[in-house]
């Protein structure tokens, strides 16, 4: 625990509204692999160009499905291997030593333990099961998402206090918000947040059966004639730490996590609250923590799934939270380019958002066919635009009425 953070975390009154500014939390390393290959630059370039990666799925059989497209990288990458790789790259960029990594907890956002659904009877008969994990060998572990997270932490040289988040499309943003809050309140100095989803047959079949996938093979957020979402690969990691710890190491932060907020709709199992009130409360909480006004937000990376109801509710939330600024703040959903990475989506999009802010250019809302009067937003169309303000919001929503807002700013 850093000394500065210790003094910052003194005895709030229990249960009271005790949000506070969070100028002390930064991201010092980030890495990603997506349908555009390895690295943040390849992903950022595609989102700035509005160049989508959707193509016919070859990783598994989709012949019985209504829709056969997704944004996938070539071949059949292994989730464990990709997670360990991006965590290593993010820690390298942050300049963390082996000792610093060994002290650092992992917050991992994933759908669950990928071994559970097809584990053999033999594998379940003993408490420690031999399961193929890292591609360089077989390790023994228990079944369960926490045990899976521990495998990733162990393979990455991180501490043995891994935590698994499984809350669908807000899993990763919830992990980032928890990491930031812990650091801001002096409960931790540094947390690695990682997330991974690689398009696979089971979730694809579920989304196809639920008629959630875009039948025209493109994701068109906030657009007329949008037909749904498409899945996409995303495995990514960031190093979240206190600004003072980052500075003491002589490292340069990529971006500051200026604010965060989460709130629930209390509305429905899977439909968003139409007036966007829950997401609006999450946005307002993030702005409040950063002590900034709505007109200081220069970009919104929207959840923008490309589904009818969700896009309308999100547009309502942006207007509700940002007021008059909602008409002018540039908005795009980069899911139109890289697809929906489920539990990893929020971290993938946070990395796009912070990279765009650093590049001074804002990504395109691709696939746009024309206005939807229920989604009146200042969308970035056709080509990227220059960033003119220092703060950017990354929004995410999920089944169960879960809403998150992460606010990043120049360090």
């Amino acid at each position, binding site marked *: 625990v850093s000394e500065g953070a210790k003094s910052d975390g003194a005895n709030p009154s229990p249960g009271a509204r*005790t949000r506070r500014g969070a100028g002390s939390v930064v991201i010092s390393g980030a890495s990603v692999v997506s349908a555009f290959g390895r690295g943040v630059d390849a992903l950022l370039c595609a989102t700035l160009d509005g160049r989508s990666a959707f193509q016919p799925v070859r990783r598994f059989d989709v012949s019985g499905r209504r829709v056969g497209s997704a944004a996938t990288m070539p071949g059949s990458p292994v989730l464990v291997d990709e997670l360990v790789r991006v965590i290593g790259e993010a820690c390298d960029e942050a300049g963390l030593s082996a000792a610093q990594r060994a002290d650092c907890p992992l917050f991992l956002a994933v759908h669950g*333990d990928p071994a559970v659904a097809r584990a053999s009877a033999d594998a379940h008969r003993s408490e420690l099961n031999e399961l193929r994990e890292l591609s360089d060998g077989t390790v023994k572990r228990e*079944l*369960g998402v*926490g045990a899976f997270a521990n495998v990733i932490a162990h393979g990455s040289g991180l501490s043995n206090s891994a935590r698994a988040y499984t809350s669908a499309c807000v899993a990763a943003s919830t992990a980032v918000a928890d990491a930031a809050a812990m650091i801001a309140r002096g*409960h931790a100095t540094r947390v690695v947040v990682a997330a991974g989803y690689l398009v696979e047959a089971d979730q694809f079949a*579920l989304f196809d059966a639920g008629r959630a996938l875009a039948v025209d093979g493109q994701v068109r957020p906030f657009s007329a004639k949008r037909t749904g979402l498409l899945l996409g690969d995303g495995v990514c990691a960031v190093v979240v730490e206190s600004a003072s710890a980052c500075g003491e190491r002589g490292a340069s932060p990529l971006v500051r996590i200026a604010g965060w907020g989460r709130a629930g*709709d209390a509305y429905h199992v899977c439909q968003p609250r139409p007036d966007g009130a829950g997401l609006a409360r999450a946005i307002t909480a993030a702005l409040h923590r950063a002590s900034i006004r709505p007109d200081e937000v220069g970009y919104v990376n929207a959840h923008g799934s490309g589904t009818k109801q969700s896009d309308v509710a999100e547009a309502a939330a942006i207007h509700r939270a940002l007021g008059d600024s909602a008409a002018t703040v540039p908005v795009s959903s980069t899911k139109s380019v890289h697809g929906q990475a489920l539990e990893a989506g929020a971290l993938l999009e946070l990395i796009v958002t912070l990279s765009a802010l650093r590049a001074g250019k804002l990504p395109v809302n691709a696939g746009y066919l024309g206005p939807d009067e229920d989604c009146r937003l200042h969308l970035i169309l056709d080509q990227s635009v220059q960033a003119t303000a220092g703060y950017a919001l990354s929004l995410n929503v999920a*089944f169960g009425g879960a809403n998150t807002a992460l606010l990043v700013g120049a360090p």
Partner: protein
Amino acid sequence: MTSIIDTVSTIDTASMTDTASLADAAGASGLAVAAAASWPESEEDDVAPSPAGFVVSSFSPVIAAVADRCLGRRISAGEPVTAVILVSSLGDVVSAVHVARAVDDGKRVLPLLFFQSVPNAVAGHVAAKWRLTGPVMCVGDVSDALDAAALLIEDGDADEALLVHMEQAFSEGTRDRAQAVLLQAGAQHSEGVRP
């Protein structure tokens, strides 16, 4: 390949944290338990009724039932912002195995399974029924959930948190077990938040 639900499970539901030890652990995280419930609590707790739209698996019905039981026991005071935190190591195993089999056998996947494909779904059911407007989150471990609850309350996005721990039983003769606790800030300040 024989799957998990055909065999004797290594998941010992009897060793799962019971409500009393959950309350103790909550206290260690600086939290007070305002209401608590278990599933089962009697021989009558056999099959939990399925909320509309939930099929195939007992995972969501048992969570809904134990959450209802817990929240029905709370003493209402004001309109607190209540978070919903679900905890499960294996998640909805029965649904996951059902989908995997259908995919592997080239069979049709039931459309309704899409809506229960993530634990958030039943959290949304509980939140809507009881008007819980706080954050919704799902984690794999009870101690992580307690820490998350303490942090949400300390950080101000919730006044209290409903924590539900659910693991499905697979072997014959055993039952699904779940615990629910409504957590509020305790008398002592949360010093135990990990890591």
